[in-house]
């Protein structure tokens, strides 16, 4: 094998020399004058690879925060009688200790935890941490570009995210508590400080953080779109792009089109909060006080929110789909099945994602007639989603799949996407949604399909591209423990929630519904879920330790292309500098999925087509 690797590397050098595109990079860039010391190399870097890693590590921080929050509110749900006084050193006054010395979680703070958990996981982890990381890392590397179209805006994109993180983090320490009105921030609850403590300064900081985040998402998104459209290397036409790039490209378009709508939505909310407007407020009596705001509609906010909110779930899941397609194909040693169908289904899903937003609002008081359209479009999404699932399964069929932590997570992703996707068929049908709306069935659905599934895509990507990011491998044994444990544990957490949801238990109940005869008989099940959540949390700690330990002491990568992959990122040096390729940029001669073709195990994209050879992507 070592011999074969050397042979391909020599071939690669030869071909890059002969066919590669010479942009005279080496003549101008004897070391990057902008990246001369630690600060400019690792902190204020404009290198997309560093920025990708910054997004990833910030994302990991928030994932741990969000997961820790979920453990606290799961303890409340699973063990409502338990003494939580031991959390007082961390949570302070949010643990109310009674005369008997028993500590109880404050209900207001319970809702803060639920809210911030949702916000940071959706936006900071699964948008910035997933799409931010891998779009940055892979777009220039896989399309054959020296960097993003605008490295400076790209750096700003990270730093706006960082600022958003700082503001959100600081809001945790407010005396009135962080925002507590749910991650969807529906007014009037979010607009009226009188209605909830968290809607005071906590909400102001939440809005500021979200506004900064939207700026970050837009700067990043514009860059990704421009880079994919303009900086592809010679020969990399659209139908030769790896599915990762297709997914990041479409994701970026979704973000650029939908995030501004969220921003306008929260800005109008800000006006309502501090300037006396009434976009969302009408005929309100709160805390005995009669407000003189009339004419607004809370439903308007829901439209604006979900106009982002629905594409947002695809902003989360599409990059995971792209990563899984690529990782599965590389490790299965087999082309992705139905490449064109995969691309078309991404496009179909992305288009449909803009015309289904009101399926979150069937029960919100919109005209029931309008819901007819949204039901139709929503359930049509099942078709391209089904196509993708069948294609992934067919990719494994007849393959020779190597079980690495990366490929296992890709397989796990498909399982999660099936399980969570199928429950979407229940919820998308408005008639069934009457009963299931805002119950634990919804919680189970979206956690499996866009929470766990997206995380699995992210893990697959991290294990797979770790050698590209850090020149070392993560430990495989710990990776596999992480995978199987998380797969089983995640199902143990979320599968039972389908049953509580069918029984009608509403989500966002501080006591889990204990005061209702219809909801209170799930004590043991709630304990089971909480214990599973704690176990899964510790399995993620294994991942984090593996991640940080391996950065410094993991097994070193000795070859450029350790997985035998076709895409261009594996033609760069193990520790690639700013500019990615020291000499010519390789040109692309074929699509990226020639695995197992004509008896060759893999044929990288820079290898010219043989005479009479058919290019499958073209």
């Amino acid at each position: 094998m070592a011999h074969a690797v050397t042979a391909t590397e020599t071939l690669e050098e030869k071909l890059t020399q002969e066919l590669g595109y010479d942009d005279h990079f080496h003549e101008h860039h004897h070391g990057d004058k902008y990246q001369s010391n630690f600060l400019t190399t690792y902190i204020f870097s404009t290198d997309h690879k560093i920025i990708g890693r910054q997004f990833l590590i910030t994302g990991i921080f928030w994932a741990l925060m969000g997961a820790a929050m979920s453990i606290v509110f799961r303890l409340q749900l699973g063990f409502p009688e338990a003494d939580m006084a031991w959390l007082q050193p961390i949570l302070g006054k949010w643990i109310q200790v009674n005369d008997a010395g028993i500590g109880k979680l404050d209900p207001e703070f319970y809702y803060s935890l639920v809210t911030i958990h949702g916000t940071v996981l959706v936006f900071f982890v699964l948008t910035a941490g997933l799409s931010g990381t891998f779009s940055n890392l892979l777009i220039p590397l896989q399309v054959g570009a020296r960097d993003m179209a605008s490295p400076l805006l790209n750096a700003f994109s990270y730093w706006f995210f960082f600022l958003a993180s700082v503001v959100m983090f600081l809001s945790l320490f407010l005396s009135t508590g962080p925002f507590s009105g749910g991650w969807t921030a529906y007014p009037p609850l979010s607009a009226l400080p009188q209605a909830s403590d968290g809607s005071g300064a906590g909400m102001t900081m939440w809005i500021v953080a979200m506004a900064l985040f939207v700026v970050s998402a837009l700067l990043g998104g514009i860059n990704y779109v421009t880079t994919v459209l303009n900086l592809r290397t010679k020969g990399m036409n659209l139908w030769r792009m790896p599915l990762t790039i297709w997914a990041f490209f479409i994701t970026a378009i979704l973000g650029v089109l939908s995030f501004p709508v969220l921003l306008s939505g929260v800005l109008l909310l800000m006006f309502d909060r501090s300037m006396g407007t009434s976009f969302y407020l009408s005929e309100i009596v709160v805390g005995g006080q009669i407000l003189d705001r009339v004419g607004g509609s809370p439903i308007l906010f829901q439209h604006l929110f979900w106009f982002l909110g629905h594409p947002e779930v695809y902003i989360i899941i599409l990059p995971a789909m792209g990563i899984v397609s690529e990782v599965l194909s590389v490790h299965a040693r087999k082309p992705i099945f139905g490449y064109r169908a995969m691309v078309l289904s991404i496009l179909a899903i992305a288009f449909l994602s803009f015309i289904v937003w009101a399926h979150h609002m069937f029960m919100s008081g919109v005209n029931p007639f309008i819901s007819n359209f949204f039901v139709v479009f929503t359930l049509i999404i099942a078709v391209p989603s089904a196509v993708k699932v069948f294609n992934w399964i067919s990719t494994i069929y007849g393959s020779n799949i190597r079980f690495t932590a990366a490929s296992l997570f890709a397989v796990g992703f498909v399982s999660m996407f099936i399980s969570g996707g199928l429950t979407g068929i229940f919820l998308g049908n408005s008639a069934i949604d009457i009963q299931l709306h805002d119950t634990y069935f919804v919680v189970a659905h979206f956690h499996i399909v866009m929470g766990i599934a997206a995380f699995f895509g992210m893990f697959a990507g991290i294990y797979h591209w770790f050698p590209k990011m850090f020149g070392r491998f993560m430990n495989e044994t710990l990776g596999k423990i992480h995978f199987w444990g998380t797969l089983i544990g995640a199902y143990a957490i979320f599968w039972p929630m389908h049953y509580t949801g069918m029984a009608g238990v509403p989500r966002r109940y501080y006591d889990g519904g204990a005061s209702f005869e219809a909801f209170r008989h799930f004590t043991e099940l709630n304990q089971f879920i909480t214990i599973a959540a704690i176990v899964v949390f510790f399995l993620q700690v294994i991942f984090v330790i593996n991640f940080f330990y391996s950065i410094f002491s993991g097994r070193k990568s000795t070859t450029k292309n350790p997985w035998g992959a076709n895409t261009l990122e594996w033609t760069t040096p193990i520790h690639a500098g700013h500019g990615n390729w020291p000499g010519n940029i390789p040109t692309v001669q074929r699509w990226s999925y020639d695995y197992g073709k004509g008896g060759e195990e893999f044929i990288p994209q820079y290898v010219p087509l043989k005479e009479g050879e058919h290019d499958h992507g073209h």
Partner: protein
Amino acid sequence: MTALIIVLCIILITIVLVQIGRVTELTAQIKGEREVMRDSSKWNGWISLGFLVVFLVSVFVSAWHYKNEMLGYGPHAAASQHGGALDSMFNLTLIFTGIVFVLTHIALFWYAYKYRWRENRKAEFIAHDNRLEMIWTAVPAVVMTFLVVRGLDAWNTVMADVGSDEDYIEIEAIGQQFNWIIRYPGSDGKLGARDYKLTSANNQVGQDFTDRKNWDDVIVGQEMYLPVGKKVRVRIIAKDVLHNFYLPQFRVKMDAVPGMPTYFVFTPIKTTAEYRNELRKYPEYNEPYDKADPTGPKRWEKFEYELACAELCGKGHYSMKRILRVVSQEEFDAWYKNEPSYYVSQIRGKDDDPNKGKVLDIDPVEVPQPADQDTTKKEPTK
């Protein structure tokens, strides 16, 4: 102290994990790459199969265990006329998705096992198959069309407002932090006008008492009653933030929005007593209601229909409970007759009565009365 122990545990776990990592890396080096891949392929292949079996078995066993939570089944059958249609939609969808779930999972993990990496084996080069793509585009499309058509048929029937010639009662549910105010129309069958600006401590709903339709309106206490078999139109509104009028057993759910009344129309088909009798058949409802009191009433005996809030409305969101009793028409009439008009019992003649000083036709007729008769609680004529 606890904090110290936790910190120590974390450090210990970290060290253990790092050591596991190191040991496995070393053994891998000793064994060589091929050997490691062979092991990994064998083990993970078997775990895939094992997971598939355990997962599917757990799914079916747990579904069987929680069968009484299934919609439309056993104790969880709908108590409203429209509920059955929704439950059958749920179950129909469950059948289709269940089949897909089982087949795709078998294929996924079985193929992962079957096509696991083995030395000297080569993957087949299969890039695409347009015929297969057509099939698995068309089949889901047909199934979805079927589900959409049935679902929308049910949806449009359920959500239809009452017709003008229909016999129904209209009640109003007003959500506020953190309880529901339920208003009945009184003897005229019509809810009086509201203006949120009139809201005060004595006028929680903001009733406009110059509107005579308000004079007989009733604000009910903790328990609300509905007659079985009679169509109910609930007008739903909120005073402060969003709430959601949720009656789980009736498959009724609708947001309460400040400034924008919404509605839900439904017909209860089972009285509370009938529902209790059905629950009685199931062992879990024969357990004591209060676990601390094993000889006390059983769960089915204490069962009540409950009204809940299903839209996050603040820190007391989980506690917006009300009791709904569904009774026969006669029992309902008897209850309703004794519910006092809010206006007459609380407002009439007080300082905040806008009609103060005027003589209204609902006023008790001013005839000389025997001294022992109490006039303050006199009902308006129904």
